[in-house]
């Protein structure tokens, strides 16, 4: 069960990529969140909204443009080489594409043993072999599979190998970047189950990214919703579905198809207009303003800040701006009524 | 035959309106390897340019076996003391623009040489002293030498006067002008230049030429790159003559004597193999090494492989060519003796050595000679590394003076010596005594040569020369390979190509006829 110990603190993280025209692609723009020990934080959002970039920056794979990421209170972007090396042992990643993330010219054994070798975790070859076999067993493969080449495996099996590689160094934190979106529906469940099982067994902390809200909700304790480089809402996963606050979250939730004709027919749909703007030149003010039904004047001018409207529920939307004297909740209630009437 | 000649008449008619009455209007076509950049006669560095200039510029005179053959000059008198040379220019000799050829032109050309060379040339400086050049009148001039120098005749013969009036008598104007690149330049020969194209020249006959009117009214010179294309062109009738350098071609054209005419003229040229006493390896070995090499060479085989026919070249026995009257037929030379050569090679330490051999790849047959020499020396345990050089790299290396670094980059090399014809032995002396690289002629030989000049008695002179030839072979680092013939093949309708024996280009355009 999630404790209250922060394992990762992300503070005002910004990651801009330079583009050719001297402009910057603001992939992640001022995002803050914490991850507590043993929990799974899910991040959803549309394609290109900066989920992967955010995750990778948190793992130190990209340098930050601004802000900081603290791992157990230590800034990961100002680590020495040695510290960084130790850090890699504690934090691992699972990739989206099970085909691209495994070296096609290596055997399963080589792939899984690499981390063990790099960190000198095995005393000798036999121990190494034993460890690899255990890892394979753990992810639901056979020890016999170790001698094979990766291209003999299907997508699901490959993803298991990827998970075994990540677990080979006994990490405490796992970043899963859409680990299932490249897999077939029937295989997805296997991987989800495996990840959930492993998390329980090893008390892993996970950052789980996907654009499929139902899966994120299934696996996460808390969910952050991103839109165009910004975190717009962050709360417990059960709460998010029941009482979404941000208009984008609401639209997103309503757009997710439900595999049940009756439930689907009853569901109310919020149809958004237009397309996601380019992250190269994001609109001033609220980035969602252009597509938002509740867009107000202020939305086009001022960027909303993340505010905690109820404990543990953060939203970045002007609808919930604190009216002087009252708590954000009130404003929410009145506006919500207006929203629902439209 | 020259099938194209009739339809070429019209296009060139404009430039030769003065020639319309001429009946025999054959076009004589031949080919060069490279297109000369200019027709300036004193720039004659390549055989190609010499051929291109031959129809339009003439020398003063030429030396032959039977004395002087006069061109622009008609008389050369040498004073008793051998110091004063009086030259008279043909009264009828004119430039193609009508101006007479005068001593001014001669002086102008000599001055240009001095200008280009950046110092006194062989015309103006002899034996370290200055030559006085006096203009007697328009057509007569006088060269007063500081001391006797037999070879001055040769100096004067290798000389194409340029038209001084075209440059206001100022030789410094030549380099900057396009005069020699533009049709219509004043020429002294039988033809004027009527066209200069990217890859060809067209010359038309002059009718005010002082030696007569050539029967060939038009000469076309085009450039044809590779050897075989030239041959194809010749066989297709595109060119009228070409030089034959291989025995196979010689045989082939001989067999088709109904289609072609053959001409063979002795080139007065000695091809020789030079050992370099300063060479990286040769300089470390004794005289015996030289001998070993000379004995290991089989001249007949070299001729056989490289030329393939004695009509193209004969084995040489002396360093003097048969075209010179002082030549000794009985000069013994070296005879192939493999056993002796092996013995000497061993004793001199030559065996097992690697020698560097250079040759001029632009000259016919030299590569073959190299190939054969290499194999023959292999027999005595010598490895020969052959480096092929083009003309421009070959000569600086081959003639590098001994103190130059280039002189120590090779051990063996082949070259040819254009000996000129005639009784004049001056050239031979300069050859024996005045070599750029110190090639082993002893003072004794040089002394003997000097003595030979001073000897009036023909018999005694010859005997002296016989001794020199023997001695030179004995001690010098040169090995005579062959005497070559200049063999030409022409289309059947072309006759009279062998009208002149002037080295190195033998054609006299006055004697060519085309039917």
């Amino acid at each position, binding site marked *: 069960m999630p404790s209250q110990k922060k394992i990762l603190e992300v503070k005002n993280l910004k990651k801009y990529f330079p583009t050719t025209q001297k402009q910057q692609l603001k992939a992640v723009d001022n995002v803050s969140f914490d991850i507590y020990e043993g929990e799974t934080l899910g991040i959803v959002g549309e*394609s290109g909204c900066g989920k992967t970039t955010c995750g990778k920056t948190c793992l130190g794979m990209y340098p930050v443009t601004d802000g900081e990421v603290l791992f157990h209170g230590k800034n990961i972007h100002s680590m020495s080489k040695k510290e960084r090396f130790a850090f890699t042992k504690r934090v691992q990643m699972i990739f989206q594409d099970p085909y691209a993330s495994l070296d096609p010219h290596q055997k399963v054994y080589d792939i899984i043993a690499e981390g063990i070798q790099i960190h000198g975790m095995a005393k000798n070859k036999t121990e190494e072999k034993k460890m690899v076999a255990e890892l394979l067993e753990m992810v639901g493969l056979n020890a016999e599979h170790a001698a094979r080449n990766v291209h003999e495996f299907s997508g699901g099996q490959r993803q298991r190998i990827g998970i075994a590689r990540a677990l080979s160094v006994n990490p405490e934190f796992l970043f899963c970047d859409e680990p299932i979106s490249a897999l077939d*529906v029937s295989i997805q469940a296997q991987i989800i189950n495996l990840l959930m099982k492993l998390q329980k067994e090893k008390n892993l902390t996970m950052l789980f990214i996907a654009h499929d809200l139902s899966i994120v909700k*299934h696996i996460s304790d808390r969910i952050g919703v991103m839109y165009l480089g910004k975190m717009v809402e962050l709360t417990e996963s059960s709460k998010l579905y029941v009482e979404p606050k941000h208009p984008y979250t609401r639209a997103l939730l309503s757009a997710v198809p439900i595999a049940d004709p009756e439930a689907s027919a009853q569901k109310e749909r919020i149809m958004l207009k237009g397309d996601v703007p380019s992250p190269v030149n994001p609109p001033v003010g609220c980035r969602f303003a252009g597509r938002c039904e509740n867009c107000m004047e202020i939305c086009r001018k001022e960027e909303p800040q993340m505010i905690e409207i109820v404990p543990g529920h953060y939203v970045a939307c002007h609808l919930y701006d604190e009216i002087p004297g009252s708590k954000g909740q009130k404003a929410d209630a009145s506006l919500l009524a207006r929203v629902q009437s439209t | 035959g020259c099938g194209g000649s009739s339809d070429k008449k019209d296009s060139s008619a404009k430039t030769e309106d003065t020639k319309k009455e001429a009946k025999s209007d054959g076009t004589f076509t031949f080919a060069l390897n490279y297109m000369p950049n200019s027709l300036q006669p004193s720039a004659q560095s390549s055989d190609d340019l010499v051929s291109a200039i031959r129809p339009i510029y003439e020398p003063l005179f030429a030396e032959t076996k039977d004395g002087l053959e006069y061109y622009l000059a008609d008389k050369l008198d040498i004073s008793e003391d051998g110091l004063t040379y009086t030259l008279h220019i043909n009264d009828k000799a004119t430039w193609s623009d009508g101006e007479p050829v005068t001593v001014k032109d001669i002086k102008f050309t000599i001055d240009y040489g001095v200008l280009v060379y950046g110092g006194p040339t062989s015309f103006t400086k002899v034996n370290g002293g200055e030559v006085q050049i006096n203009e007697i009148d328009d057509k007569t001039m006088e060269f007063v030498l500081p001391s006797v120098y037999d070879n001055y005749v040769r100096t004067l013969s290798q000389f194409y006067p340029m038209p001084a009036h075209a440059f206001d008598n100022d030789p410094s104007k030549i380099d900057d002008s396009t005069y020699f690149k533009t049709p219509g330049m004043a020429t002294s020969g039988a033809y004027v230049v009527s066209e200069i194209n990217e890859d060809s020249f067209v010359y038309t006959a002059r009718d005010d030429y002082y030696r007569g009117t050539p029967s060939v009214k038009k000469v076309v010179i085009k450039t044809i790159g590779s050897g075989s294309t030239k041959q194809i062109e010749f066989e297709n009738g595109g060119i009228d003559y070409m030089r034959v350098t291989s025995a196979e071609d010689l045989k082939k054209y001989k067999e088709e004597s109904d289609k072609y005419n053959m001409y063979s003229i002795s080139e007065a040229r000695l091809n020789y193999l030079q050992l370099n006493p300063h060479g990286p390896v040769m300089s470390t070995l004794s005289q015996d090494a030289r001998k070993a090499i000379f004995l290991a060479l089989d001249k007949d085989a070299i001729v056989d492989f490289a030329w393939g026919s004695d009509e193209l070249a004969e084995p040489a026995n002396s360093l003097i060519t048969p075209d010179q009257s002082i030549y000794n037929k009985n000069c013994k030379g070296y005879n192939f003796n493999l056993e002796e050569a092996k013995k000497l090679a061993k004793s001199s330490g030559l065996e097992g050595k690697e020698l560097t051999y250079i040759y001029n790849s632009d000259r016919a047959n030299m590569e073959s000679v190299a190939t054969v020499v290499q194999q023959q020396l292999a027999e005595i345990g010598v490895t020969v590394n052959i480096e092929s050089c083009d003309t421009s790299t070959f000569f600086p290396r081959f003639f590098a003076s001994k103190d130059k670094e280039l002189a120590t980059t090779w051990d063996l090399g082949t070259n040819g010596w254009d000996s000129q014809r005639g009784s004049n032995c001056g050239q031979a002396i300069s050859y024996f005594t005045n070599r750029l690289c110190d090639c082993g002629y002893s003072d004794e030989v040089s002394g003997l040569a000097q003595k030979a000049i001073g000897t009036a008695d023909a018999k005694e002179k010859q005997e002296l020369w016989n001794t020199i030839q023997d001695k030179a072979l004995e001690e010098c680092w040169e090995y005579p390979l062959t005497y070559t013939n200049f063999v030409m093949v022409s289309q059947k309708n072309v006759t009279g190509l062998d009208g002149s024996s002037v080295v190195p280009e033998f054609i006299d355009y006055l004697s060519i006829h085309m039917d």
Partner: protein
Amino acid sequence: MNNLLEMKHVAVNFAAYGGTVQAVRDISFSIEEGQTVALVGESGCGKSITAKTIMGLVKKPGKVMEGSQIIFEGTDIAKYSSKEWKKFRGKECSMIFQDALVSLNPTMKIGKQIMESLDNHAVTTSKEEKKKKVIDMLKLTGIADAEKCLEKYPHELSGGMRQRIMIAIALISHPKLLIADEPTTSLDVTIQAQILAEMKALQKKLKMAILLITHDLGIVADVADKIIVMYAGKIVEEGTVREIFYHPVHPYTKALLNSVPRLDRDGKEMLCTIEGNIPDMTNPPKGCAFCERCPRAMNICAQYMPEEKTVSSSHRASCWMMDERAAKGGVAHA
């Protein structure tokens, strides 16, 4: 209602290096006028090939096998000549593809690409009229400034716009059947919802039938009238939306429905999984193709292909479990 399209015993093979890939193995189904039929199944089960077969777009090394019948409005189009196909495509039946970016010619202006479809089925109209038609169509698909859009190149548009262009191209000649091969897979959910809604609206307006190919059961639940579940080149179950979602028969359909977590349900319990992988289609198992992964497989499943049985007039499935003797064999039937 009439059957617009009837597929009878259609089989498609591909000659590949490793042998012949039996991509589609003897499938039969029908689509009624104005109906939305969803074709669902795992990747590689032959959905796209089925669609291409209807359009006559199966290319070498693929081959529609002898005996396949595709009856469209009473005529067997499988026997069409290439000229007849040309008339058929775009006019009677249109198709849109998954990835709109690669499905549009990158160096041709949008307007021209849409116009081509009109040109091909020229109901001799003037250029202006055609242009007007195109603009109207674009507006119908939800593109606001249609005139401007005509002069653009595909790469200048966003993913959703491109997919709308694709729909416009497909619908400009008012086909009777629209085949949509995963039309929204490359899009975001919010955009997907827009596109699906627009498609539904257009369907109503133009009264056409849709064959929707997808592997997202959620979309199916939302849009389809009838569902066809394919597995390894065969149809394993077919029925109305309610029949499939609420009374699935085939173990594969059941597993498929249960393996997807649902947004509207809470809890972190383990999902239902289907172990194993789809069989190799060059060498399909001689029995039921799902047998290897089926938790209830019986001996006979590995030996013989199950025959198709009807559950109701609109509901059919192929599974040995439906044989009345299956229960006797020992395993309880759900």
